[in-house]
């Protein structure tokens, strides 16, 4: 048993990276594997500082390919294991995450997006949306939570472990450099005291008993001999994913009932969008707000309910249309016009969104 890191509820004022480290402790994560990259470094720093105090472990690997595969290994051994990365590290990690999809390994990865492509900036972007949702040579059978505050980084990191283990799909917490580095308040708590269930891990390999005689064999395959065999497996996974979707999909929506324009954003940009909607409403403009929290699976149903009532949808993101594509796909067949507000690699303020919509 690991030692409890948090008892009761505490108000804290810290960086997002620190909040993630505390969340992983609160979720009773047992080991982090990692390789440093800005802006996620401090997740590792805080974890390495905190982990020994609570009987947890850390392994620094030689790169992100290894960090991804060792995380898979930790999970196969029956541990709540996680890693964190950003940018080029996220690219390298996709190979392991592709294997996690194939073997249904419930890995947890925290991504703090930086500018791209390539090294680009160490600062911020929302350009890892497509990569995190669909990276790998597969179908994107993963769960991606896009957070917008330190409270959400804390809440969804805890949740990521539980959901990953429950459904056995690789799960991602998609933050960004702003969330990583900024300081704001949040409440740290012990999830069990609030009735929030923890992940229930079990070993995939190395179980007791003779396989095939005393227990079911663990038959984990990422190689198939025939097309038909693979097709059958992937079809079953897609069915599992679709069955899970209504249970995990999450969004925020407000002011949409009478809205002529609906502003759509995810992650940190949704804060600017929300503030802009408030400001525009106070000017008498009928503007609504929609934010997908899960980017995978995407909250298609709610968006399709809201969209036809509006005259226009504005999609704002710090990328060149990565959220836009998800929205477009969700709304296929609808005729409501979509207007882009794309700032790849650049932060978006509420002031500029107000101006964009007003003029």
């Amino acid at each position: 048993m690991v030692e409890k890191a948090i008892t009761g509820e505490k108000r804290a004022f810290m960086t997002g990276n620190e909040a993630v480290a505390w969340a992983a402790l609160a979720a009773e994560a047992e080991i982090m594997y990692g390789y440093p990259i800005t802006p996620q470094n401090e997740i590792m720093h805080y974890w390495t500082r905190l982990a020994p105090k609570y009987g947890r472990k850390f392994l620094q690997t030689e790169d992100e390919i290894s960090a991804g595969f060792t995380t898979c290994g930790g999970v196969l051994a029956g541990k709540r294991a996680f890693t964190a990365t950003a940018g080029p590290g996220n690219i390298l990690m996709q190979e392991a995450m592709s294997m996690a999809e194939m073997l249904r390994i419930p890995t947890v990865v925290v991504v703090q997006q930086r500018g791209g492509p390539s090294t680009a900036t160490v600062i911020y972007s929302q350009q890892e949306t497509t990569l995190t949702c669909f990276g790998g040579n597969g179908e994107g059978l993963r769960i991606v939570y896009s957070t917008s505050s330190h409270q959400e980084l804390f809440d969804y990191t805890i949740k990521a472990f539980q959901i990953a283990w429950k459904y056995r799909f690789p799960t991602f917490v998609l933050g960004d450099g702003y969330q990583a580095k900024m300081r704001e308040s949040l409440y740290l708590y012990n999830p069990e005291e609030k009735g929030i269930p923890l992940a229930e891990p079990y070993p995939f390999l190395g179980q007791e008993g003779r396989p095939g005689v005393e227990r079911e064999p663990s038959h984990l395959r990422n190689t198939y001999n025939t097309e038909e065999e693979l097709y059958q497996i992937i079809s079953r996974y897609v069915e599992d994913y679709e069955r899970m979707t209504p249970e995990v999909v999450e969004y925020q929506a407000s002011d949409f009932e009478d809205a002529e324009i609906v502003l759509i954003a995810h992650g940190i940009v949704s804060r600017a969008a929300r503030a802009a909607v408030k400001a525009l409403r106070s000017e008498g403009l009928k503007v609504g707000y929609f934010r997908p929290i899960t980017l995978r699976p995407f909250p298609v149903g709610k968006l399709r309910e809201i969209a036809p009532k509006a005259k226009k949808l504005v999609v704002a993101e710090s990328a060149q249309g990565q959220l836009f594509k998800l929205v477009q796909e969700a709304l296929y067949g609808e005729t409501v016009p979509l207007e882009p507000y794309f700032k790849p690699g650049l932060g978006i303020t509420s002031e500029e969104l107000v101006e964009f919509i007003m003029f």
Partner: protein
Amino acid sequence: MKGTVKIALAGEGGQGVQSVAGIMVEAANDEGREALYIPNFGVEQRGGVSLAFCQISDEKVGAPKFRDADLVIALSDRAVRRTRQYVNKDTLFIYDSSIQGIEDELPRNAKKVLAIPALDIAKKELHPRVFNIIIMGAAIEATKIVEMEQAKKAVEKRLGYKFAQNPKLRELNFKALERGAELVKESLA
């Protein structure tokens, strides 16, 4: 005071802009208010303009960065040029009076532009090391985001371990806070 106070602080790396921003938001948080601080960071280890965005509010803060600041404090010529973009008609723009040759580059659309001799006072009256604490005093007087007593507590919290070794530093820092506040009070009077 209106809902959210937005402050942009900018200076050269090493002038202590980020420390001041950190202490100010900590003070506000300790008063039970909502605060958000984000440093502008790049790949450089030192040098370049160091910029800090702070917001203090009675409710949860929105986007971490903003375009229109209530207060801009610029501590070098480059910082003046860099921060002009955060000025609008409601902005108080403060710069250090020792900065040379920027008269033509000061913002013209600000509510008010103030030059304060913080660097001069730090060198002559106090100590160059407390230059940033003078700036903090000025920022607090200009925005009233926290009480002076709360600001002192936050400085104590951050630098207490140094004060324990040399109690004169406490006096020096508190004096710096008060002098910074006086500079703004006199200029706005």
